[in-house]
């Protein structure tokens, strides 16, 4: 209610008295009683579904040249939203907005830890009189005394947009927003060190810890845009700045599998980062053959600065574990990713029945981040990071031809080439063709058929790294592997009367990874969808929908023992191709 009153007070201050005629709108208020059995967090998820009062307010006022709207939903609850918008026709418009959205994951979770929601998790000591002296403090095994909490995040976003043109072709737009996220989400981690509740060592595979990760994020974004837009020309310059801050850069958690000492593990959380973007866009309309030429160029940068940790728990050493100090070539990681995009599109209508589009798009991601090398001070082994970057070229054409007023034929071709800094495939090339026919011969039906074919080929450049790593010579990862993709979509819209609309659609997609030895080899998807809308004199609208999907995936895997020959055809020292599954 405070926010509604505040919005109206703001409006009364900025809008001259007597500007508007009478206010119209609606005010709905209701009572809600809720009873949920089962996992109520799934039922609520993004909404505040609780007992109580809820309502919406929608107010509008306008004059001959100005308007003002206020919309408020579910005021007072944690999924409320407010919007105050207004403007002067042909001159300016503005909007103030405020929106809250919860995201519930699960309720009533239990943890041994205290400090939930902070960057330090520790568990409380139990009655030491019942625990062996060598195990202090011991992990409480009675879950009924553990702490209870809910996994969930609340997102609050607010800001303002304003758009000026003052009745001229020139315009200025500005947008400022702030988004805050707070709560806890699930984090899981392995023990990392060999430990147990008694003597001896256990494999870390069986020692997992689930814990609440604190979420306290803030993202601020400013966007500015200015340009000139007339029926024939558009020139626009825009920029954006976005900053992300995480109040918690690390999470320290006491390892419950190590009871001979207080061993605090550290997870490094999402880093602060800054994003900058500058873009230029231009369009020229009313060219010959009713053409429009549009061009866009932009450049963006993402930066982060993270002080690096150079100590880590040794993974062995029970019953006493020690910190291992690592060698580092520099003590700070500076993230620096630059992207560049250029695009040009020419769309034309040479004749009344023919329209065409030609386009070219270039995207480049350049990674200038720090090259970090960790060195073991005992063995002098090293591990270093790999900076991923890629560039992508896309070019294509679409043609649409109206055979008759009721029949339209479309087709197109696209070529996509990607070069990557990657050890398996360093480049891929896609050829994509599509054809579509749309028929509306009957007054009460429209039919559409679309077929698409894509052929991807790539350069497999994986080197033989020896030992177990030799298996990579036979692994083709589906996101870049050679494949042939076939897609089909058939749809029909039926209008048997003015009151009823019926829609039916079938889709088929088949990915054949024809060169893959190990990895996904086939992906087949069928989907059938239907919906119906019934309108009763525009006062009542009933709708229903149904769908059925079937997905079938096949893949090959190799399971072998360390030291054996990873070659899938090897018949000794391990199992051949196995693990085929659908």
């Amino acid at each position, binding site marked *: 209610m405070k926010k509604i009153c505040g919005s109206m007070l703001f409006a009364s201050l900025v809008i001259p008295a007597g500007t508007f005629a009478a206010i119209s709108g609606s005010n709905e208020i209701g009572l809600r009683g809720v009873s949920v059995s089962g996992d109520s967090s799934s039922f609520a998820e993004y909404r505040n579904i609780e007992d109580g009062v809820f309502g919406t307010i929608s107010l509008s006022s306008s004059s001959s040249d100005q308007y003002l709207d206020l919309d408020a939903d579910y005021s007072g609850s944690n999924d409320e939203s407010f919007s105050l918008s207004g403007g002067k026709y042909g001159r300016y418009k503005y909007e103030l907005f405020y929106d809250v959205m919860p995201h519930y994951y699960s309720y009533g979770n239990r943890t041994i830890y205290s400090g939930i929601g902070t960057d330090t998790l520790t568990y409380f000591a139990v009655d030491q009189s019942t625990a062996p002296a060598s195990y202090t403090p011991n992990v409480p095994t009675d879950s009924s005394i553990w702490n209870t909490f809910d996994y969930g995040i609340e997102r609050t976003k607010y800001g303002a947009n304003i758009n000026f043109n003052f009745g001229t072709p020139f315009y200025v737009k500005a947008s400022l927003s702030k988004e805050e996220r707070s709560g806890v989400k699930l984090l899981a981690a392995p023990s990392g060190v060999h430990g147990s509740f008694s003597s001896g060592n256990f494999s870390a595979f069986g020692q*997992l810890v689930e814990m609440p990760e604190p979420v306290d994020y803030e993202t601020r974004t400013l966007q500015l845009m200015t*340009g000139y837009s007339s029926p024939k020309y558009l020139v626009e310059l825009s920029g954006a700045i976005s900053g992300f801050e995480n109040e918690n850069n690390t999470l320290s958690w006491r390892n419950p599998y190590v009871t001979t000492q207080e061993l605090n593990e550290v997870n490094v959380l*999402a*880093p602060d980062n800054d994003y900058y973007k500058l873009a230029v866009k231009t369009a020229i309309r009313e060219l010959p053959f009713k053409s429009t030429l549009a061009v866009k160029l932009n450049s963006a940068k993402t930066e982060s600065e993270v002080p690096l940790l150079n100590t880590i728990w040794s993974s062995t050493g029970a019953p006493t574990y020690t910190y291992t100090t690592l060698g580092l070539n520099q003590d700070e990681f500076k*993230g620096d990713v630059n992207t560049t995009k250029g695009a040009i599109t020419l769309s034309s209508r040479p004749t009344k029945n023919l329209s065409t589009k030609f386009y070219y798009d270039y995207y480049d991601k350049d990674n200038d981040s720090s090259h970090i090398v960790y060195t073991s001070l005992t063995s002098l082994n090293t591990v270093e990071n790999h900076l991923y970057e890629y560039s992508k070229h896309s070019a294509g054409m679409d043609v649409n031809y109206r055979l008759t007023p009721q029949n339209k034929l479309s087709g197109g071709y696209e070529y996509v080439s990607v070069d990557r800094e990657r050890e398996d495939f360093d480049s891929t090339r896609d050829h994509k063709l599509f054809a579509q026919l749309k028929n509306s011969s009957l*007054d009460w039906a429209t039919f559409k058929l679309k077929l698409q074919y894509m052929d991807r080929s790539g350069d497999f450049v994986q080197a033989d790294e020896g030992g177990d790593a030799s298996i990579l010579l036979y692994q083709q990862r589906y996101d870049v592997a050679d494949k042939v993709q076939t897609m089909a979509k058939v749809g029909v819209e039926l209008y048997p009367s003015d009151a009823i609309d019926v829609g039916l659609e079938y889709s088929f997609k088949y990915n054949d990874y024809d060169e893959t030895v190990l990895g996904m080899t086939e992906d087949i998807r069928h989907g059938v969808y239907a919906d119906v809308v019934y309108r009763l004199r525009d006062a009542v609208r009933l709708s229903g929908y149904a769908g059925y999907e079937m997905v079938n995936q096949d893949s090959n895997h190799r399971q072998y023992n360390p030291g054996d020959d990873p070659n899938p055809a090897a018949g000794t020292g391990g199992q051949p191709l196995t693990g085929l599954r659908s």
Partner: protein
Amino acid sequence: MYRNRSNYRAPGLLLTTSLAVLLLLGLATVAAAEGSATFVGDETCLSCHDQQAETYDKSLHAQAWSSKGGQFKQNGCESCHGPGSAHAESNDPEDIRSYSGKAMADDNSACLSCHQSSPELALWKSGAHAENDVSCASCHTIHEDDKPAVKEPETCFSCHRDIKFDSNKRSHHPIIEDKVSCSDCHNPHGSFSESQLRADSTNELCYSCHAEKRGPFLWEHPPVEENCLTCHTSHGSRHNNLLTSRVPNLCQDCHDWSRHPGSAYDATNNFSGSGGNRFIARSCLNCHTTIHGSNAPQNPDSGYNGGHYFVR
């Protein structure tokens, strides 16, 4: 049997000529109807179309024309529908410009005559909606109230029914809860990007809300860096966290090795024993939790607790 083709020329020629004459007459009729029709004024229109009369005065167009003056204020309804005298006399929908069941070019020319200079419509003609004959009136309600804005997502779902199906799956972006709208991610009027996204790439769009994934990270996961949709689907999924398939299947489609992760994770032995955590809880993500990237240190001599394997 041999047929003398000359016997078929005369009837064929007559048929073709007849069709041509009929076509010309039809076109002439329409042209005559529009060419000879005159403006009759809003009161004449609204005397029959009372439903539109109830909301017309509240509409943004009525307000805008009232303030804009000139031709628009004078002609009102007929600014978009054309001169109405012929229709007023015959009551025939064919004698007036309407916006249902017609070719898109006819539908949109009236709208574009005013709105073409809008920066939002700079790429309309090259967009997928224009190529698929979606008219302005297909999405925007012109006569209703003062809000011609599209009612999302219902309007979009009326054509994109597979997306409607996805949006109602158990893991989904809050589209049906009205917290994320279709136009937050897509520009329905056209853009330079695939699927008419409002960003230069899929990842840049995702980072606008999920800035904690923006990095840059010390240890990167290449498919994550190139395209979020390698592992996720954007509208809805049967699997947790909008994943395209279930973990560990998703991870094993790319990762193989001796023993772990090469062991075929299936139902025979992965709910108990040493592999007992493979299907429990978050499966691979139980350990490899920082799968989007990590800044944690890495001991070259051990992989259990470092950032290189996304374990910290």
